[in-house]
């Protein structure tokens, strides 16, 4: 089937907008809810991850990149074979996708784009905090952020006392901190001082040396922390390597390898969160999608619209949620990229409102400066 612009949206968000927001108070909402973001740096190709089925134009423009056997989602969309866990969870309404979506950024620079996907702003490098950090702060959830990376991602900045887990090769004696702590005086030492506070409050399991190259172990520890009722409520994973200008490949190849990494993390989280998976949302984040057309090196260039991969028990149902813009030349952004018809920040704002038990309107104002972001909680998530 040849996909043209069609409306896949079922129902709208207008009713909720007008009726105001009344959070349900139930036992379920008392349970800690986890929000996990997996950053996919380099520009994840939504059309490789969640390919549209039977589009002749796509086949023509991507002669060397077409997937031979995709996993079946519905009559319009398939799933990359390396994303097995999403396919499995799809059967139980625990995986879904938002397609033809992006942050409102069309500049095609990784660095500006990644800065904006994390700050949620419009002008690169203007904001020094991340939307997730601001969302936590606005919801008064302090010290509950966990990054699975060595540096603290910009996405989580803006709320104090975040933690990260990427352990050193040996046990570190934290009593050294006590000996120098009081030397950190003055405003210019505040950041280091508050980071030392966080280290001092870490649970024992995070002080154990392990192998940080082993993503499995890192994801396992993250699952363990998130499962704990008093543990972190937010976790951020960082993957890179999605910038496949060359040898992007189809079922195998550079992009497939990266998707496999996503699959691995989600699989471990699913296996080890146990029941907590029911109260969890996992969402991916990227700076842009990639061009429809393959380039000279059988790769793709920086584009615009991409997709969000979602998993977790807080999803409403399995669906590809999209306002599909079509792939005809005139339907493409600047004649070359999949268009974005959904501001991905609306998805993240709605996800935060669900996981932090907050009014989406309130978060929209506090976190995204009141930008026009429709509430998608009812369409996408269990509320």
């Amino acid at each position, binding site marked *: 089937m040849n996909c043209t612009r069609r409306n896949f949206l079922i129902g709208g968000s207008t009713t909720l907008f007008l009726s105001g927001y009344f959070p349900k108070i139930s036992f379920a909402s008392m349970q800690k809810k986890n929000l996990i973001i997996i950053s996919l740096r380099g520009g994840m190709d939504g059309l490789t991850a969640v390919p549209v089925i039977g589009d002749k134009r796509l086949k023509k423009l991507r002669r060397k990149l077409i997937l031979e056997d995709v996993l079946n989602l519905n009559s319009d969309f398939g799933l990359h074979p390396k994303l097995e866990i999403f396919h499995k969870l799809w059967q139980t309404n625990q995986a879904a996708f938002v397609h033809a979506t992006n942050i409102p950024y069309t500049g095609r620079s990784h660095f500006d784009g990644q800065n904006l996907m994390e700050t949620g702003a419009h002008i690169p490098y203007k904001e020094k905090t991340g939307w997730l950090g601001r969302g936590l702060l606005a919801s008064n959830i302090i010290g509950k952020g966990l990054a699975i990376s060595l540096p603290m991602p910009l996405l989580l900045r803006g709320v104090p006392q975040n933690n990260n887990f990427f352990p050193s090769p040996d046990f570190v004696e934290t009593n050294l901190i006590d000996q120098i702590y009081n030397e*950190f005086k003055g405003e210019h030492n505040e950041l280091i001082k508050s980071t030392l506070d966080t280290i001092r409050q870490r649970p024992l399991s995070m002080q154990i040396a392990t192998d940080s190259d082993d993503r499995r172990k890192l994801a396992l520890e993250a699952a363990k922390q998130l499962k704990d009722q008093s543990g972190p409520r937010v976790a951020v994973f960082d993957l890179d390597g999605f910038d496949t200008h060359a040898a992007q490949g189809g079922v195998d190849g550079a992009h497939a390898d990266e998707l496999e990494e996503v699959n691995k993390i989600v699989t471990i989280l699913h296996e080890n969160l146990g029941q907590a998976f029911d109260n969890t949302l996992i969402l991916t984040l990227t700076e842009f999608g990639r061009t429809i057309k393959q380039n000279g090196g059988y790769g793709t260039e920086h584009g615009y619209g991409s997709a969000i991969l979602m998993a977790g028990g807080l999803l409403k149902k399995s669906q590809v949620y999209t306002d599909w813009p079509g792939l005809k030349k005139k339907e493409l952004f600047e004649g070359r990229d999949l268009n974005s018809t959904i501001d991905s920040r609306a998805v993240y704002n709605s996800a935060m409102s669900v996981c932090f038990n907050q009014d989406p309107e309130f978060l929209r104002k506090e976190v995204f400066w009141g930008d026009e972001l429709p509430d998608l909680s009812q369409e996408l998530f269990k509320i």
Partner: protein
Amino acid sequence: MSLKFYRRVAFGLSPNDKPDKDPLNWALNQLNTIPNLLWPGIIPTEKELRKKYGEWVYGDREVLRKKFKNDKHAYRKAKDELRIKTGERYFELNEHAIRHYQTKYSKQPVFERFWLFWGNHFAISEKDFLAEFSTGPYQREIIRPTMVKTFEEMVQSVTTSWCMIHHLDNSESFGPNSKKGMEWRETINENHARELLELHTVSPNAGYTQDDVIQLAYIMTGWAHKWDRKNLETGDIWFDQEMHQKGDKIVLGVKYKNDAKRELAKVIHDLATHPICIKFVSTKLCRHFITDEPTEDMINPVIEAWNKSNGSLIEIHKAVITQAYKHNENTHKFHPPEIWLMQLSRMFDLNIPLSSEKMNYSFSSKPNRRQRQLSWILREIGHSPYRAKQPNGWSDFEADWVSPELLLRRFWFSSVELPIHVKSGNRSHDFILACLKNNFEDHENMASLIENFRFGTLDYDLGQKYGVICNLPGVLKA
């Protein structure tokens, strides 16, 4: 003038260095010439290492994969042997040693700091086997010799270097109306053009459009490696007229007439002398040497020096140092892990890097643990210099370097790993006190914090002392 100036613009003072009566002149005088590389061990040329790179990819891709296509284990074994034979596991370690030996012993440490800066400004991020074979020699042979020329010459040299062209895919960029483009139905790859604008010269502040990127990519088409069956992608850079987009091009409103290989030099001239480029790079220099958020009164004198000298890097560097000197007392600059490590090695005369004799390599077995040590430390403290994740290199902002784990890695290094690298003659408490006195005004306070371990001589005691000292605010920052 406080002693921290020696760490602000260099690597602190070694036990053999003494503070100068005129620190500003001490620093300025280091910028006129290019100091020789001091490493007594082997310093292979870029071309030699590129040949090794070629042997490695050819051997793996064209020989082993075909020979062992049905035997995974035999393939893996043969591949490991090839790694050893071509030095795939070795050359990066040697490059790290060359680099750290230079920052430890150079008589022009201020020059070396600028060397590190430019290597990072024109960063080669982790891609293919560049870190293994190419990024080190690129920084030695492409960046370093141009540091006494103009910024424009540096950009020219970088843009047509094999390393950058491979890094940013320009060999895969074909003018769609060029002979090869038409024959093979190929088109441009924008990557290099975009980074030349965004990272290397004018920055997004110049307000260029997608069209500017495309037009610049057109100008750059043809600058590619000379491919042949044996060398694959490791051939020399040349200008391939048959890949070059024909016709006039317009970048940032300036028209470039169809002029084949000469188009690139013209557009680089315009970009490298663009006022927005000058401001962007001057700001970055001030950020690196003075403070995360440099002010106009720091940046403007650098811009002035730039304009007055037509982009002479010697004059630009001097202006930056003059500002760093002027603002030494009222600013604080947090140092990224590699510079911190270099400073510790110089100030406390650590056994880092390993001696050149011990770095000798036989190409018959895997590099030994000690040979791998420095590179391993750099990775563990989060700053493996040739392996930035993105072409924008390593950050100069404190916030990017302060996280619980990144700080814990520094505690780990200083208390667990560092004692292993203390020279046997330097294990006394008095030696530490003398180093502190040489480098810090508040050395007495620092000494009081390690007084409890005064009489301990075990690695553990040294670890406690260095664990405290190396992580004090005045050591993390200068």
